């Protein structure tokens, strides 16, 4: 075999070693070869780096999965297209439907059964001035009209039961359980009864009824208008709500099951017997109680990680900010998790040491609302699963008390519902016995046991039956000492993370896959409980683990072969420091507020450098400089070699300079003298409707480029004539210039001068449009305000959400004109149409059950 073939063979083996597909002999052959072949050693490092990077991607993806599982989904693009299509089609369909389906207003009479304390004039009911009036409707519903309240009845459209306009005053509707949508309209918008009781207020006295009966209007035109409006409202409303809340279509009367603030039910076993002592959480997917798990009384409980005995479940359940509980089931198996916030996509989580973990989505269609307002999800069935029990003994057969025992999913096994690293942990008792239950039937597992000083003993098994009397025999391991030193000075490095990689152990199960330790003040770390042999040890120096404001350059860690029983020394290359001083070029005064972006000079980056220091780092950007008053900031964690630093300060032209980071330990100082930017931009801000100048508006000029964070930012205010003069701009066409204008009560205005385009000396007047506002209030059945309820409006990119305050009130500000469904707990409680800039609408109080 020639040398080339030998290199190729070794590289194949290196590749296979990354997949644990080499024999011990092959491993030795590789080790022998790479000890003398730099090229193959580099290949091995690269293969490890690729694996590490992809494993990092897996970890990041798992994180992203958990995040996306927690948050409400954003509507997909096809839904927005569906909205647009629906809005285009709706008017035509509406006209047709209006012609065909709308009832004849000439023959239609209001569905009034009786009236008490009010007078009826045609289709209009006017309450007296003294007391509340009551209007009973033919379907059993009841309207309570506040004094002087006026309502007008309209012919209902298809699928509607009632269509009533509130002309003035306040109405409380008690809605009977019957088919058809119950609609109340005010000049501010339309409310649909989704609960059984709700109150509508109309603060504004108006002279005519919105869309109400108008005897002078030509009948055909009116029918077309009503039909089109109705259909647009229905289609747009449904599509918009679908886009906000997911896949549920709403119908009148469904809200009883949709709105709840506590969840109850019963935990039973496979035989239907109640299970006591199970812990139950409710995950509502709404992360507004950040970082705190609430206990049954609604008080902040302990964070999840203190449930040390239930580590097995943590990964699986991700008990976190949106998870409420636990409630413990009583002897009858019943639980009641209170104060679950505002459930968007509820899930009941059940843990019991003797049973399999259980995650059951809340099926609202099969849930009922109890008298106390709790959503009763019925029975949650948990399965017993399989168990494994036995004894842990030492080499002489004596029982080992207090040994850790874990049942884990073998790496590479698929099809598990939870995280692959999910495991169940236990400890042996005084007789060395253990008993682990609740394993998923039929699955392969690995049972492991260990102590701090022993080599883990393993027992792979399949949970196709209960396994009893398993004996795990522990053998004492040896210790490996690793001393970490600075490669240039020889001084010990404290606080370095030392991790042991051994392919034989690493891929068996996570709990003992990696031995870790941190170096002490003498730079020493001891890894115990390992089998004698040679291992790959990875060291990450403390100054390379990252710090605030500095993204840690990748691939800084050092991996070396270490042998047990000897004092292994690993030299690391400590980071260099570069001190940056930034001054004004004209006055030489130090600048204290600036940003710096640093990147490796790729022009001189070569293979030799890469082999010594690794692959090019990402750009390091410090977006928030912490310069001292002398304008000095020390940049750390830089590798030796050429770097390009670009410094930005507001009101100055950015400056790019090369920094040569030396091999030596000394701190390099680099001085940046920035020239003041001299660009000027003039403009004015006016009201879009009136053309009047707007004084005291904030004009925020922001220059940026995609490669960097903000280059230059300058803020000004308009004068009494609405004019502004922005100075200190770079005038460089390499940057975008964004001019944002804001003023309370107006929507933000924006003008962009794209990079590459010439900068104008003055802008056209910037026209600001007044913002619209929607307000409302959420109360419970007794009228008590509900706080922290999540309220949504808009859809797609414009989706907004807010939480109610202590008084149950919510406010959406900064809205452009348009149509806004208001959604609470999957239910649309109202649709508000804002037609005029500056309009302020109040949604009727939403009363939940």
């Amino acid at each position, binding site marked *: 075999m020639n040398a080339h073939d030998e290199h190729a063979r070794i590289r194949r083996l290196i*590749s*296979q070693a*990354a*997949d644990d*597909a080499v024999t011990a002999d092959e491993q030795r052959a590789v080790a022998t070869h790479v000890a003398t072949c730099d090229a193959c050693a580099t290949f091995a490092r690269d293969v490890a780096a*690729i*694996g*590490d*990077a*992809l494993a*990092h991607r*897996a*970890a*990041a*993806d798992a*994180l*992203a999965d958990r995040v*996306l599982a927690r*948050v*409400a989904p*954003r*509507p997909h*693009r096809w839904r*927005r297209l569906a909205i647009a299509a629906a809005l285009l089609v709706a008017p035509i369909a509406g006209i047709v439907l209006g012609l065909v389906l709308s009832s004849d207003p000439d023959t239609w009479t209001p569905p009034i059964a009786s009236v008490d304390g009010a007078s009826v004039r045609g289709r209009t009911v006017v309450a007296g001035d003294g007391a509340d009036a009551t209007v009973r409707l033919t379907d059993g519903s009841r309207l309570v009209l506040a004094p002087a309240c006026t309502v007008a009845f309209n012919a209902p459209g298809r699928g509607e039961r009632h269509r009533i306009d509130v002309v003035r005053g306040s109405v409380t509707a008690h809605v009977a359980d019957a088919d058809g949508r119950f609609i109340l309209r005010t000049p501010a918008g339309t409310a649909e009864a989704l609960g059984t009781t709700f109150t509508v207020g109309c603060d504004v006295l108006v002279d005519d009824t919105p869309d109400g009966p108008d005897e002078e209007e030509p009948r055909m035109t009116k029918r077309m208008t009503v039909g089109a409006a109705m259909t647009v409202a229905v289609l747009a409303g449904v599509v918009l709500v679908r886009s906000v809340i997911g896949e549920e279509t709403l119908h009148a009367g469904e809200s009883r099951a949709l709105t709840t603030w506590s969840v109850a039910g019963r935990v039973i076993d496979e035989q239907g017997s109640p299970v006591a002592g199970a812990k139950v959480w409710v995950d509502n997917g709404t*992360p507004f109680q*950040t*970082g705190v798990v609430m206990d049954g009384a609604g008080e902040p409980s*302990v*964070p999840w*990680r*203190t449930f*040390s005995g239930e580590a097995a479940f943590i*990964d699986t359940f*991700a008990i976190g*900010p949106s998870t409420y509980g636990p409630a413990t089931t009583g002897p009858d198996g019943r639980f009641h998790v209170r104060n679950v916030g505002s459930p968007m996509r509820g899930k009941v989580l059940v843990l019991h040491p003797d049973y399999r973990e259980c995650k059951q989505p809340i099926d609202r269609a099969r849930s009922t609302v109890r008298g106390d307002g709790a959503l009763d999800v019925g029975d949650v069935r948990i399965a017993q699963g399989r168990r494994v029990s036995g004894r842990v003994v030492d080499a002489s057969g004596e029982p080992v008390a207090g040994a*850790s025992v874990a049942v884990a999913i073998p*790496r*590479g096994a*698929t099809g598990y519902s939870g*995280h692959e690293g999910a*495991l169940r942990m236990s400890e042996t008792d005084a007789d060395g016995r253990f008993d682990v239950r609740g394993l998923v039937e039929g699955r392969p597992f690995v049972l492991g046991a260990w102590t701090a000083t022993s080599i883990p003993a393993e027992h792979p098994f399949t949970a196709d039956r209960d396994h009893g009397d398993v004996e795990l025999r522990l053998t004492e391991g040896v210790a490996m000492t690793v001393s970490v030193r600075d490669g240039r000075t020889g001084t010990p490095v404290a606080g370095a993370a030392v991790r042991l990689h051994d392919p034989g152990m690493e891929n068996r199960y996570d709990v*003992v896959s*990696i031995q*870790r330790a941190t170096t002490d003040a003498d730079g020493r770390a001891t890894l115990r409980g390992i089998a004698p042999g040679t291992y790959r040890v990875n060291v990450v120096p403390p100054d390379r683990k*990252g*710090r605030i404001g500095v*993204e840690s350059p*990748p691939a800084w*860690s050092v991996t070396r072969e270490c042998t047990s029983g000897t004092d292994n020394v690993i030299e690391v290359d400590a980071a260099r420091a570069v001190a940056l001083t930034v001054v004004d070029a004209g006055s030489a005064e130090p600048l204290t507020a600036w940003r710096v972006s640093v990147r490796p000079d*790729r022009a001189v980056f070569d*293979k030799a450098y*890469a082999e010594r220091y690794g*692959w090019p780092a*990402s750009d390091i950007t410090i*977006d928030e400089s912490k310069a001292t008053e002398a304008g000095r900031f020390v940049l750390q964690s830089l590798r030796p070699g050429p770097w390009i630093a670009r410094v930005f300060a507001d009101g100055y032209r950015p400056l790019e300079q090369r920094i040569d980071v030396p091999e030596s330990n000394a701190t390099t100082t680099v001085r940046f003298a920035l020239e003041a930017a001299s660009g000027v931009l003039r403009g004015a801000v006016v009201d879009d409707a009136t053309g009047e100048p707007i004084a005291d508006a904030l004009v925020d000029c922001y220059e940026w480029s*995609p490669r960097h*964070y903000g280059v230059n930012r300058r803020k000004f205010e308009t004068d009494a004539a609405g004019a502004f003069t922005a100075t200190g701009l770079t005038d460089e066409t390499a940057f975008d210039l*964004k001019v*944002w204008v804001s003023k309370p009560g107006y929507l933000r205005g924006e003008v962009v001068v794209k990079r590459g385009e010439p900068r104008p000396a003055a802008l056209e007047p910037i026209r600001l449009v007044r913002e619209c506002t929607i307000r409302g209030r959420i109360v419970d059945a007794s009228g008590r305000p509900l706080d922290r309820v999540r309220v949504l409006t808009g859809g797609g990119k414009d989706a907004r*959400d807010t939480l109610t305050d202590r008084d149950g009130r919510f406010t959406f500000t900064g809205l452009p004109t348009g149509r806004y469904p208001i959604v609470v707990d999957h239910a649309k409680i109202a649709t508000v149409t804002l037609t005029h800039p500056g309009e302020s609408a109040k949604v009727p109080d939403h009363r939940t059950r």
Partner: protein
Amino acid sequence: MSAVPVTPPDERLVGQVLGGEPAAFRLLVRRHADGVAAIAHGFGVDRNASDDVLQDVFAAAYERLGQLRDPSRFGGWLHEIARNRCRRHVAREAKRPDADAAPIPEGAVAATAADRAPESDAIAAALERLPAHFRVALELRHVDGLGLAEIGARLGLEVNGVNARLYRARQMMRRLMKGDE
């Protein structure tokens, strides 16, 4: 020729997420998880809790993405959220009476994003340029953690074939990372 990152910039990804493509958020997490982890580390957030804090930070960012004024500043904006969350976390931990009680043994916690070596632009760029059959093989091995036999079953290859494919994929990755191709 040096490797050129071909991953889309933050502002485009932010636009995609706002446009209803949650998959784009995955790329943002990949890109910024280490920065956030570094911040958490800087605040002294316990390793066991850092994954939870990371989740919090990214969930908050996702929820508030519509409020981000300049998508190109996603990184800085995210870091600000991270600092606030970490501050809150540290303050809450300090108040907790059993702050030091019953910590989970370090080894008992599955590896988090913070434990892994971050993915550099060079590797990300090379991966993007890698032919699909190579990329899939590498991802099945390292991202999904499948064994050779399982990869073979997915790709219709014998184990030796999987070995060969992975070897060639890694060779090509190296060449792409060095800009040789």
